[in-house]
């Protein structure tokens, strides 16, 4: 009886309203909506902070918008660098901004081919399963007071879940059972070990700097942004982000000119649409993480009218800045060979990340003393 009562309380409108996103600008509208019976419940649910984090920022809605934007932006930027216009005619007055939508629709309606040699169950379910490690981290990343799950171990949890993504990619390559997929998978595995250690070390350095792994606390502590406190760690984090999302110059596992998208070579239609966006989704998560760790997350001028939405906007802008920087790399760099990339990460990057940890430890001791 007690338990049922607790449960009912947990899903009640009042419970949601205790912890709601407050936006002074449109507060009257929200108040009115809340009074309508069913609509009120839905509005309260959406504006309930954990649900807001899941559905709107940094969750699904922003993720989709960012995906559509960044793919278009990348093509447009590459085109401008090559003295072209890029996607345009589809929506002339807006510079063809819905190009990625058309591509997505086309993929959605295209035939999905499952070839004879594929391991059919895994081949089909892995691109969908991979959304678990891609979407879960979003719950732990705070924007101001809006956060899905608040825990002191948020940072290790996010890093651990993100590290799971390559395992899925390797599994995808295995299920595809084709020689290009095989080569790409091997490359992915090599790169995985190469960037993961500097990546984790740079995160450890930042944990040392702030003395905590709770992301909300980390953001609060950043009166000076982390990129100034420990620029070395920021550099290592940035480079390993490029490697982790296989962007140029480290686009080694996919390398469409030589191994035709490596692990994803056999996917067609909407399945390819799903696996192609993995790298972009990972890029989004790591950009969020970068803005939390190094750029002060939701910190910025408070905007009274927007209330809880202000940190969301600051964080969104910082994340987009990081993503745009990442997209920029694509059009100006050539690709490293696998051995060059491995040498770089196992020697130089490892050394620099060790230095970053030392700086972090020194700052930590200075704070304690």
């Amino acid at each position, binding site marked *: 009886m007690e338990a049922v009562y607790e449960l009912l309380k947990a899903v009640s409108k009042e419970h949601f309203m205790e912890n709601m996103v407050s936006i002074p600008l449109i507060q009257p509208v929200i108040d009115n909506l809340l009074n309508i019976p069913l609509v009120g419940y839905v509005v309260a649910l959406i504006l309930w902070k954990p649900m807001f984090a899941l559905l709107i920022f940094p969750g699904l809605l922003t993720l989709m918008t960012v995906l559509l934007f960044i793919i278009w932006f990348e093509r447009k930027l590459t085109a401008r660098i090559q003295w*072209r216009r890029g996607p345009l005619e*589809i929506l002339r007055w807006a510079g*063809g901004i819905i*190009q990625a939508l*058309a591509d997505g*629709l086309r*993929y959605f*309606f295209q*035939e999905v081919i499952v070839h004879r040699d594929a391991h059919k169950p895994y081949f089909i379910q892995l691109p969908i399963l991979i959304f678990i490690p891609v979407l879960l981290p979003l719950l732990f990343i705070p924007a101001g007071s809006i956060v899905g799950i608040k825990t002191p171990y948020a940072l290790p949890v996010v890093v651990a879940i993100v590290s799971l993504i390559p395992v899925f990619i390797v599994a995808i390559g295995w299920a595809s059972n084709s020689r290009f997929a095989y080569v790409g998978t091997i490359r992915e595995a090599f790169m995985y070990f190469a960037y993961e250690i500097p990546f984790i070390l740079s995160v450890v350095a930042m944990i040392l700097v702030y003395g905590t792994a709770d992301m909300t606390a980390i953001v609060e502590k950043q009166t000076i942004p982390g990129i100034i406190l420990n620029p070395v760690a920021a550099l290592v984090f940035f480079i390993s982000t490029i490697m982790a999302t296989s962007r140029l110059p480290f686009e080694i596992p996919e390398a469409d000119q030589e191994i035709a998208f490596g692990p994803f070579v056999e996917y067609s239609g909407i399945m390819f649409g799903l696996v192609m966006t993995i790298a972009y989704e990972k890029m989004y998560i790591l950009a969020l993480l970068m803005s939390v760790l190094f750029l002060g997350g939701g910190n910025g001028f408070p905007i009274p009218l927007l209330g809880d939405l202000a940190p969301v906007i600051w964080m969104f802008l910082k994340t987009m800045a990081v993503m745009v920087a990442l997209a920029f790399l694509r059009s100006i760099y050539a690709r490293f060979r696998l051995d060059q990339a491995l040498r770089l990460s196992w020697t130089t990057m490892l050394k620099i990340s060790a230095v970053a940890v030392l700086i972090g430890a020194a700052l930590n001791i200075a704070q304690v003393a």
Partner: protein
Amino acid sequence: MSDNIEFLNSGPLAPFKKWGTKWSLWPVHLVTACCGVELAHAYASGYDGERLGSLNYGISRQTNLIIVEGAISRKMARVLRITYEQMPDPKFVIVMGACGLKGGIFWNGYHMVRPSDVVPVDLFIPGCPPTPESLLRAIRSLQEKIMSGEAKNTIEFREFDLSSVEGRSCPALPPTTPKVIAPTPAIKVDVEREVEWSFGKKLVKRFEKELEGLYDSIKITGKNRIAISTDRKRVVKIAQILSAEFDHVKNVNVIDVPHERSFIVEYHISSYSVRELMPVVVNIFAKIPRDDPKFPSLMTYWQSADYLEREMYDFFGVVFEGNPAMGEKFLLAPDTPDFPLRKDRKIRDECYCMEVKE
């Protein structure tokens, strides 16, 4: 299953499907001939095909458009078909260039196929090569075709009554055929020529002594060029003697002379090891009857003759006795007609109206 596809093509979702496909025509990288240069131009900064949402991309599994860039040879036809089969539906084919239409400059070649015999074609672009503008135009009309579901001409020409044109003094006649065929052209391999080449004259003297009784004539046909005429019985002996200094065959060549019922087989030999013989090319040639096309292989003396002899067998059916690879196709695609360069091979007739089979 087909019900579902029917639903996608005409149900409430059809406009989305058409719209998405229209703005996302991604050609696969399949460069088959020189028209590919124009394709590159159409997608580079000058014309920027990406404006239309079309992007050259990866491999067939992830794309939906094949632009056949000009000539398709028999070997490439297989590749084209495989690429087409790998591509997920809906898929489209644009054929560029005169070669893709009727063969272009390779018209009547034994190695050409028409892309329309291999895959269903949506649009043809004439020209050799077509301009980038016309390629973009084709992509635009493909977009229109996708939206409306029907094929239309890209350009509507205006009707024009020629009889009203003033100043025409004579009636317009179709041009006469430009083909001129000499019935029995003389084919002479060793036309003698006077040149300042004292070393050559010395060389000819030496050959005349060394090859006593093995040749019909030895002539200087130009600076650094000597032709030795012989027949197929004695040629092995000549090869044996000359291979001491001349260490490789540059070229094996067969000339078909149908009106004399014979083939002429030529071996061009030269030297890499003797300094003063390096620029010299000696042509040993012999006539063989056309109904008994056999020639001794000179592979034992010149290893480099091996592949050249096989190639000549492919083209003319001259059997080089002693070469182990006779009787099989070497470089030609398996379905090429036998001995395609023989002059009496029947070429495919020009056909302007095709019968439509019900």
